[in-house]
């Protein structure tokens, strides 16, 4: 094929394909009809509006970004202020504390006793009982308390009330080792301090020469098991136990060593069916030896009881709600026949069975809701009645067996400072022993 023919074919092809397009283009370039022109104008307007909207969106995004940054600055500032202030006292607890912490506490009282008694009216210096608590971290506590008092002849007598180490084993158990206040009943362990006790003294039978043990030396396992609003508490103790006194009675206080190898076993179980009500039961069993003087004829083989069983049991209850506190305790102890030396019988005497029984009920009511008067608010009348009986020891019975009624009025200067005024009627049950009426004043301070 020649070049001329190619040129002819190309020209023909271009003409065939391109001419209609050229014709169409020629038509489009012609002025649009009015409808098309309107549409084109409308499209241009929409494009302009869209551009404006894009601008506004971009501006809004920028504003939002600035607001977010401002908010973040505020959050950072708040956190900074919290960091500076939150370690304050309200929520700063154990983590910042030293390993060893301590606390000095205790109580003291002074007073006056008069009335129709065998002794003279007298001011009494009362007691000073400082107690020391040292705690290592959160699992060990040493606590000890002294009692200082001035005797009638001016001497200062001191006594180590308790000295114990408490080891917190877990949430429900604490191991107590040393000399501790007796867990029998409620009064001795929890209620006897003068700023807690509503009356000037202990109930009949719950003090010295009574049925209530004061303390013991040994080991205790104690704690509490909560279940909803109820609580079960326990205190199980093994100690040196009681000892025979030189008067032929039973001394119930913690000795530095035991006089025999028999240990006392006892304790108390308490139950709170509701927060305001507590009921408890106590038990103690032990053996006591008779006192054998060195020059005393040895009665071995004589069949005489050189030791005797001692057991004690009791129940208690307390209802405390708001200004009302009502309490009841009962204790009874028994000791079997015992051959022992006494002050009056240094060569020994066979003592009969000894029984002691004591109980008391007490009600106090704080008049905090009775009047708008600030003075009335601080008043608290209290009544206590109790009985103490002894059989098997005439001297102890003559000296101590009685029915005792107390009526008093307390004035609370502060939650731990109380001024007490009261009357105490002692109706001795042994015929011939004159009754007594005591007027008592006491100022007690717990610190």
């Amino acid at each position, binding site marked *: 094929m020649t070049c001329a023919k190619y040129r002819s074919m190309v020209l023909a092809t271009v003409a065939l394909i391109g001419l209609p397009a050229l014709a169409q283009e020629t038509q489009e370039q012609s002025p649009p009809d009015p409808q098309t022109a309107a549409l084109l104008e409308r499209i241009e307007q929409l494009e302009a509006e869209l551009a404006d909207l894009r601008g506004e969106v971009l501006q809004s995004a920028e504003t939002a970004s600035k607001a977010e940054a401002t908010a973040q600055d505020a959050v950072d500032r708040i956190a900074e202020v919290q960091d500076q202030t*939150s370690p304050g*006292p*309200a*929520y*700063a*607890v*154990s*983590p910042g*504390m*030293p390993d060893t*912490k*301590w*606390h000095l*506490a205790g109580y003291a009282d002074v007073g006056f006793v008069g009335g129709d008694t065998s002794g003279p009216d007298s001011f009494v210096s009362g007691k000073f009982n400082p107690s020391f*608590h*040292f*705690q290592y*971290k*959160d*699992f060990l*506590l040493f*606590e000890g308390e002294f009692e200082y008092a001035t005797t009638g002849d001016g001497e200062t007598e001191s006594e180590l009330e308790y000295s114990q180490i*408490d*080891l*917190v*084993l*877990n*949430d*429900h*158990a*604490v*191991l*107590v080792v040393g000399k501790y206040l007796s867990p029998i009943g409620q009064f001795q*362990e*929890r209620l006897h301090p003068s700023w*807690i006790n509503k009356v000037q003294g202990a109930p009949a039978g719950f003090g010295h020469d009574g049925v209530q043990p004061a303390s013991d030396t040994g*080991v205790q*396992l104690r*704690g*509490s*098991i*909560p279940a909803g609003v109820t*609580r079960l*508490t*326990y*205190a*199980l103790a*093994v100690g040196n136990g009681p000892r025979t006194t030189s008067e032929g009675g039973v001394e119930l206080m913690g000795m530095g060593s035991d006089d025999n*190898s*028999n*240990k006392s*076993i006892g304790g108390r179980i308490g139950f709170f069916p509701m*927060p305001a009500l*507590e009921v408890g039961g106590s038990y103690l069993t032990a053996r006591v030896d008779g006192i054998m003087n060195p020059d005393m004829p040895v009665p071995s083989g004589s069949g005489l009881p050189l030791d005797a069983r001692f057991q004690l049991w009791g129940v208690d209850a*307390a209802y*405390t709600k708001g200004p009302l506190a009502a309490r009841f305790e009962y204790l009874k102890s028994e000791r079997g026949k015992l051959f022992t030396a006494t002050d009056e019988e240094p060569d020994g005497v066979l003592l009969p069975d000894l029984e002691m029984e004591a109980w008391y009920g007490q009600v106090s009511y704080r008049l905090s809701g009775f009047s708008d008067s600030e003075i009335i608010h601080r008043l608290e009348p209290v009544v206590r009645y109790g009985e103490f009986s002894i059989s098997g020891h005439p001297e102890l019975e003559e000296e101590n067996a009685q029915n005792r009624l107390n009526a008093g009025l307390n004035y*609370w200067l502060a*939650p*731990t400072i109380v001024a007490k005024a009261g009357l105490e009627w002692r109706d001795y049950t042994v015929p011939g022993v004159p009754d007594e009426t005591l007027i008592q004043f006491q100022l007690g301070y*717990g610190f």
Partner: protein
Amino acid sequence: MKSCIFPAFTLATILLTGGPAAIAQSGPEETPAAESAADTDPMQDPMQIVRGAKAWNETCSRCHNLRSPSELTDEEWDVSVTHMRVRGNLPASDVRDILAFLQASNNQ
């Protein structure tokens, strides 16, 4: 009861509780009681203070008037509450709540 029985009884009682073993295994830093420090952080449990106030009122007033929280410092309350835990046989959960309340309320 023979004397040899008592040490055995005492030892058995102690061992049954498992407490010393727990302390020996975990060391003083991790005793069950030491864990209570974290449990007394009201920031983690704001209701603890409320529970503590209630337990403080119900528990302490069983025996004596309520002391003002401001009477003692945080450290002193820590020791005092442990003392009362032993004396009053208080449950540990109540003790932690009461301590949190007292330390949050003493303004010291």
